[in-house]
């Protein structure tokens, strides 16, 4: 308990405050760049190939205020965002961006967190195993697997897994949510079967990276002085590894949480397209193609905030765990 209290006291509050302050201009830059890129992109959210007349497009644009000078649009969008209003979706009628994100977020979150959890557990298990048995067949096999996991992108592993496990073997659904007939009609729900393949696909590269990290860190830790001391004291190999080596070897894993989250967020763009899941990643891609700029902006702001906060969280945990780390 006192250990936890001591760890808690190590949180560098001044540093956290400064990082949060820096996050504000960072977000502002992101919003600004994304806004102008989206608004400068040719094409209009209201043009459906060859069906909508120029006049109809102009009328719709006026209705949404897209005909006003660009800087006016920018400031009115910004003040809306500050009040928590991300505006209406331009392509999906009668839905606000917040509503759409509310629908898609649970799917993306479930996908991301399950994949992260799986990667952490499986990745560190493989890494520890390989690190303890350095240069044995088991080590080579694990690292060979890791090499494949790192080299092959999810948009290749995903379709191939869906083809083999989903279509040829028919063990799991190859795409989409599970359809369930209810009194209200057909409802699409997230089920475990439907999420197994997407989660495994998304986790694969991170299992690979984490197992490499853990292996290297384990090997380095086992050579350090305090492990030699622990062994010299006559502790059992089990105690040496579980009590003394593991906690230190886990440290690099914590610092990987930040980049990994960013990667998982990006990965969801691919996974949701491979397995046709209606998460926010797929909204972003579709929104960008449709020029639905309020939707795109909403997703960008959400993802950027998420990445910034999780990076900060990873740094805080690191500072709590490692007394050697000092933030000015």
């Amino acid at each position: 308990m006192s250990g936890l209290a001591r760890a808690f006291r190590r949180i560098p509050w001044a540093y956290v405050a400064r990082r949060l302050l820096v996050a504000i201009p960072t977000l502002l830059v992101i919003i600004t760049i994304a806004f102008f890129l989206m608004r400068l992109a040719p094409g209009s959210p209201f043009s459906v190939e060859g069906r909508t007349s120029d006049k109809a497009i102009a009328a719709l644009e006026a209705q949404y205020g897209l005909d006003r000078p660009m800087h006016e649009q920018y400031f009115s969008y910004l003040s809306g965002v500050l009040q928590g209003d991300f505006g209406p979706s331009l392509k999906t009628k009668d839905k606000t961006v917040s509503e759409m994100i509310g629908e898609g977020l649970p799917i993306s979150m479930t996908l991301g967190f399950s994949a992260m959890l799986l990667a952490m557990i499986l990745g560190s298990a493989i890494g520890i195993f390989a690190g303890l048995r350095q240069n044995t067949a088991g080590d080579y096999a694990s690292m060979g697997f890791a090499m494949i996991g790192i080299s092959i992108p999810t948009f290749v592993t995903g379709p191939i897994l869906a083809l083999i496990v989903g279509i040829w073997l028919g063990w799991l659904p190859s795409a989409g949510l599970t359809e369930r007939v209810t009194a209200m009609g057909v409802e699409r729900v997230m089920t475990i079967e439907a999420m197994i393949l997407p989660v495994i696909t998304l986790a694969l590269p991170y299992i690979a990276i984490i197992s490499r990290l853990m292996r290297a860190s384990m090997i380095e830790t086992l050579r350090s002085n305090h492990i030699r001391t622990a062994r010299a004291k006559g502790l059992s190999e089990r105690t040496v590894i579980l009590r003394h080596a593991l906690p230190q070897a886990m440290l690099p894993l914590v610092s990987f949480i930040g980049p990994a989250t960013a990667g998982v967020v990006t990965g969801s763009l691919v996974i949701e397209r491979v397995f046709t899941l209606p998460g926010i990643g797929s909204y972003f891609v579709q929104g960008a193609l449709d020029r639905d700029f309020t939707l795109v902006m909403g997703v960008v702001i959400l993802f950027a905030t998420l990445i910034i906060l999780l990076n900060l969280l990873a740094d805080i945990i690191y500072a709590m765990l490692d007394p050697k780390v000092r933030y000015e």
Partner: protein
Amino acid sequence: MTSTALDLNKNTAALSEAIAGRSLWEDARARLFRNKAAVGSMIVLGILVLIAIIGPILWPYDLTDISTRRQAPPSLEPFHPLGTDLQGRDLALRTMWGLRVSLMVGLIATLVSLVIGVTWGAIAGFAGGRTDQIMMRIVDVIYALPFIFFVILLVVAFGRNIFLIFLAIGAVEWLTMARIVRGQTLALKGKEFIEAARASGVSQANIIRRHILPNVIGPVAVYVTLTIPTVILLESFLGFIGLGVNEPLASLGTLIGIGKDNMRDHPHELLAPAIVMIVTLLCLNFIGDGLRDALDPKDR
């Protein structure tokens, strides 16, 4: 007395010859060629590059040629060794072109990132002080951006021109390069031979060009080989979500995306580009790993 002095001279001469005979690069090459995975990968990659360059020239069809046999499975008579796609285009030719586009993107975008990153990092590291701080803070800020979104938005905003895709990818991939080069430059700057160069009146630009850059090449070379697959992946990712190069050109990612949509009834459309992609990426990664082990034996 004189004879021993002469002997000593001879010895040092022999010694310096022996040292010159095994330079860092020769050592590295020897180590690289001892690495079976890396050598095998270089051979396979070489064959792939040849196929990508010569294949489309020798092939009996053009990219715009359309067969009446649509989504045909692989057959030799008529000659479609990998079958045809939805429009009746020869899939083998499409895949070879895809490989060509992917490799080209990999090379050119990496080159763009190399030029920006090395220049930025070398200047920041060498200038030091405030300039360094401002320059690296800019890198930090860009680093924190969810850059994949910006690549997507850039492609949406400026169209799917292949050269713009090179530029957009190169423009986001230079950050790590800049950090590596800056770190190396900072470390080198304090070394005696730089001080000696400065003392003998060599200009700053020449110090960077003649003394700093050659010493930075090792880590940069390793990072370049690792950047190429990253860049290929990034471009293929864009292709996969439907934002790749314009038709009739296609990168491997575009082909995998199309193949995925048709995989239920025509799995060969997915498998052909997917296997080429896997082999290419594995080769590049093994070569990169081999090079890293060769140039930085401490890391083994």
